[in-house]
């Protein structure tokens, strides 16, 4: 009996410090007086121009601006890592950050595979992930976790919806897809097909190409033979770039419109205007929208020697939004900060009147852009004509279609 009591005492003595610190975290103000933000991204692979070092720089800028404006009493620290586009590398890193380094919030997290894995760890550890880079709509549907995860910049629905609807309504109503043969490409093709059909268009066919194919001319010839008015590129990065280049060379652009479904200013810059003129696609951000975006982007340009992608601008905004919520509530407690972020409209260089919905989707205006002719471009990086501002309510998947269990329960 005595022995058992002793054992219980010893056990509780061992447990005490642990519960003590856990208590301190939930009731205390800011754990360790430090708010720690982490940027998890692809530093060396195919997406490293889209996010990569630029995202780290954007996060640094956000912290700098926040400190200058609010003079906070707490310290803000930034860490970053390369997930090499591997879900296991990413989730292990994030676990380490949460467990041993006191990280409160992780952002960027491009690559849907990595993002879904990291979202699970984040929920398990009850921290915050603001995803600025991954595209999959699963993050706000099947795999949603609205009390821990915010999907910030764009998703496959938003990318597909803009061009799918607008281009079809212009009378370019027959489509053919060039689709990267993996989950992301298939979901992009599916979302676009739905938008095209809803707008009264028809899909004539699709060809699935392997990821990182070295030559696209053969697939493009099939697209050409389909006689579709629009060729939709349901792929990304280098695959998109090489598809566009070959499309131009084989004369597709003369009779058919090329629509990139995940194309960014980085791709346009890499290809140059002569090759890309006339292309249409959806963007979440453009540096030359107004005075505020220009100021932010020029500052970014001074550091990176390139204009920000929507991921970079989104990462800046995500970090700012998070820090403002911490400042307003005076704590880094997950539930409190998340509640504050959900309540507060987002107004900064990236988004005007943005808001975080109950499924974790941050909705904001998106832009349907057309690439300028070389003669229309007045300076380097002057690439887009904004054809249409897609209002926040229409840009993203309506709540009525949500497949998020946490939302359905309510």
């Amino acid at each position, binding site marked *: 009996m005595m022995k058992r009591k002793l054992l219980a005492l010893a056990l509780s003595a061992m447990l005490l410090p642990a519960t003590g610190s856990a208590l301190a975290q939930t009731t205390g103000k800011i754990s360790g007086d430090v708010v720690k933000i982490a940027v998890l991204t692809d530093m*060396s*692979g*195919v997406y*490293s*121009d889209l996010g990569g070092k630029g995202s780290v720089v954007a996060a640094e800028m956000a912290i700098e601006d926040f400190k200058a404006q609010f003079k906070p009493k707490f310290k803000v620290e930034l860490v970053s890592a390369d997930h090499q586009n591997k879900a296991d590398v990413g989730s292990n890193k994030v676990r380490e950050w949460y467990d041993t380094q006191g990280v409160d919030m992780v952002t960027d997290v491009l690559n849907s595979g990595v993002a879904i894995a990291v979202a699970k760890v984040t929920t398990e550890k009850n921290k915050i992930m603001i995803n600025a880079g991954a595209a999959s709509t699963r993050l706000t549907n099947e795999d949603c976790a609205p009390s821990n995860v915010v999907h910030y910049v764009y998703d496959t629905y938003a990318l597909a919806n803009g061009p799918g609807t607008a281009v079809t309504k212009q009378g370019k109503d027959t489509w053919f897809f060039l689709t990267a*043969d993996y989950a992301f490409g298939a979901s992009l093709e599916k979302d676009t097909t739905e938008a095209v059909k809803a707008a009264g268009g028809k899909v004539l066919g699709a*060809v*699935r*190409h*392997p*990821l*990182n*194919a*070295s*030559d696209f*001319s*053969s*697939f493009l*010839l*099939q697209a*050409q*033979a389909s006689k579709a008015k629009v060729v939709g590129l349901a792929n990304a*990065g*280098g695959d998109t*770039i*090489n598809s566009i*280049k*070959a499309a131009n*060379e*084989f*004369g597709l652009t003369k009779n058919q419109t090329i629509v990139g479904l995940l194309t960014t200013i*980085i*791709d346009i*810059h*890499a*290809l*140059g205007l*002569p*090759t890309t003129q006339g292309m249409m696609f959806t963007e979440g951000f453009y540096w030359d929208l107004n005075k505020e975006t220009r100021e932010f982007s020029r500052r970014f340009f001074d550091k990176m020697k390139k204009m920000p992608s929507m991921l970079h601008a989104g990462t800046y905004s995500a970090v700012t939004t998070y820090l403002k919520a911490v400042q307003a509530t005076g704590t880094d407690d997950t539930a409190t900060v998340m509640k504050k972020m959900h309540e507060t409209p987002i107004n900064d260089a990236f988004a005007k009147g943005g808001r975080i919905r109950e499924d974790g989707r941050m909705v904001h205006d998106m832009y349907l852009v057309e690439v300028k002719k070389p003669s229309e471009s007045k300076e380097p990086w002057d690439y887009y004509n904004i054809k249409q501002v897609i209002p926040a309510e229409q840009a993203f998947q309506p709540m009525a279609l949500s497949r998020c269990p946490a939302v359905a329960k309510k």
Partner: protein
Amino acid sequence: MTEIFGVPIQALFGQLMLGLVNGSFYAVLSLGLAVIFGMLNIINFAHGALYMAGAMLAWMGMEYLGIGYWWMLVLAPISVGLIGIAIERLMLQWLYKLDHLYGLLLTFGLALMIEGLFRDLYGVAGQPYSIPEEFSGAFNLGFMFLPKYRAWIVFASLSVCLATWYMVEKTRLGAYLRAATENPQLTQAFGINVPLMVMLTYGFGVGLAGFAGVLAAPASQVGPLMGSNLIIVVFAVVVIGGMGSILGSVVTGLGLGIIEGMTKVFWPEASATVVFMIMAVVLMFRPAGLFGREK
């Protein structure tokens, strides 16, 4: 319109033509690998990186020095060849006595370093390089719209392959080379400077990679990853053709390009793997490759 398996015959001709274009790249690259393996017994994993370096040099020449495509078609392979000679003199030459594995590891490491260097300097999205003016536009062949530049790729690659084959098989220099491959000690005893020939062979082999890089620059995006996307297929081509066989690598390169092109029509999802399926089958029946000799 006549159809074969539901595909119009005209479209099929178009795809055959494209297969030939891709096959030309495989041929030039695998030729370089075959020459190097035949002479040095080195499996040159840096080949893809040096192919990329050729393309990057073409772009850099245009961007920084204003040197056009035609000059770079000569200068870039020579520069890549010189880089190769430096690699051979400083590093590779110490490895000939050791197992193949050491050369493979060294060149693989070099490939990673060269790619990493360009990635760090220029990012991964790549650089635009436009088609030289002489070749803008296309031939209308009736059954397809063939860009003039693609036609030039086939012509230029086949000429280079033919010239290489002629040099190795029909000239005195080629005879020395073949003798040095067969029995280096004996050849040296006849007063032929074998180390010099080995060095030049490696330089020439990687120079071919640089040449293919410049050829590819206007047709695909010039970026640090372009080599690693291609090189694995090229290795498969060399294995199928038979390690070290010059004629084998050229014929196999073109043939596999065409087979791959056909796969893109009938079963596009498999187009990245078809070459490896063929490799597996060939290795089962002819372990030395289609044109290789068992030692």
